[in-house]
């Protein structure tokens, strides 16, 4: 069954906004449950990590370029480079490696 793209987009938009607006509007007291707070604390890092690897390696023409981008990205982020710098340098790394290999 083919689902219309606009249905997908509607669901995406509604869920995204609900997640951002409901706590702001509804919860004005503090949630104390430690496990719940810890879960919410860890989720962003785990999600982003799972989404990044191995996807970054498959995103490029040559997997080696993807691996280079990963290494450069981790290194620069570790050294405290800004978000934009890290993203840009990953792109440049791919460009250089693929210029040599592909």
């Amino acid at each position: 069954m083919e689902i219309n793209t606009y249905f997908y987009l509607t669901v995406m938009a509604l869920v995204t906004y609900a997640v951002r607006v409901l706590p702001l509007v509804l919860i004005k007291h503090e949630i104390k449950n430690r496990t719940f707070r810890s879960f919410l604390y860890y989720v962003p890092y785990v999600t982003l990590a799972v989404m990044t690897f191995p996807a970054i390696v498959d995103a490029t023409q040559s997997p080696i370029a993807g691996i280079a981008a990963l290494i450069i990205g981790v290194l620069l982020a570790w050294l405290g480079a800004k978000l934009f710098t890290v993203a840009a340098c990953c792109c440049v790394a791919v460009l250089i490696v693929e210029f040599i290999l592909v």
Partner: protein
Amino acid sequence: MTRKNKEIVGVLNKKSAFLNGLRDGIPIGLGYFAVSFSLGIEAQNAGLSFFESFLASFFCNASAGEMAGFTVIAAKGTLFEMALITLIANIRYVLMSFAIGQRVNPKTSVIHRFLIAYGLTDEIFGISIAKSGYINPFYSYGAILCAGPCWWAGTVIGNIAGNLMPIRLVSAFSVALYGMFLAIIIPAGKKDRIIAALIAISFAASFSASYIPFICDISTGTRIIVLTVVISLAAAILFPHKGEEVIDNGN
């Protein structure tokens, strides 16, 4: 300063808060443009038109969330899968929204809360929560009015130009988003050993899951959901997070 004084200053400073927000939104917008450009390419790969990808970025303003959503569209997943993966990819905003909610003047009209929520991205959360005292909604509005259009434009141009660009450049731009993700998670891992371990475990688990027979047949979206919930929940139970800081936005 007493709470009452803070309120008065807040009202007087509506305009300057808005202008400050616009100014602080500039570097954020530049970063957004590059990143959403690669998101636009992803959208195009998933079969979205430039108008559809504009709608996605206009209504969602979310990198990981949109990316996850496009994965579901590309895989022709179910709407339930879409709802679930969007929820998981954006679940961190529950915490940010909650944290911002605690810092908005209780007397602020609920309309402001609805509007702040629209522009609640990781970066705008970061610069908003860093201010002392009550959060001035107009600061958030300034920031999102500057950064938002960059985000939407980047997505649309990426979607259109992804077609026209040489494959070398498409290939290079497609890692910008992952670079941004790394810039968020790695500094957090540097500060918190548990997060560092979680990143390593997540990488390994995600890598294994995409190659192990049978498991690799499960859609990418579902895999992300299952791995995130399992790993985060295990970490929350085994290593409850201490400390008061809510989230590190990685900037």
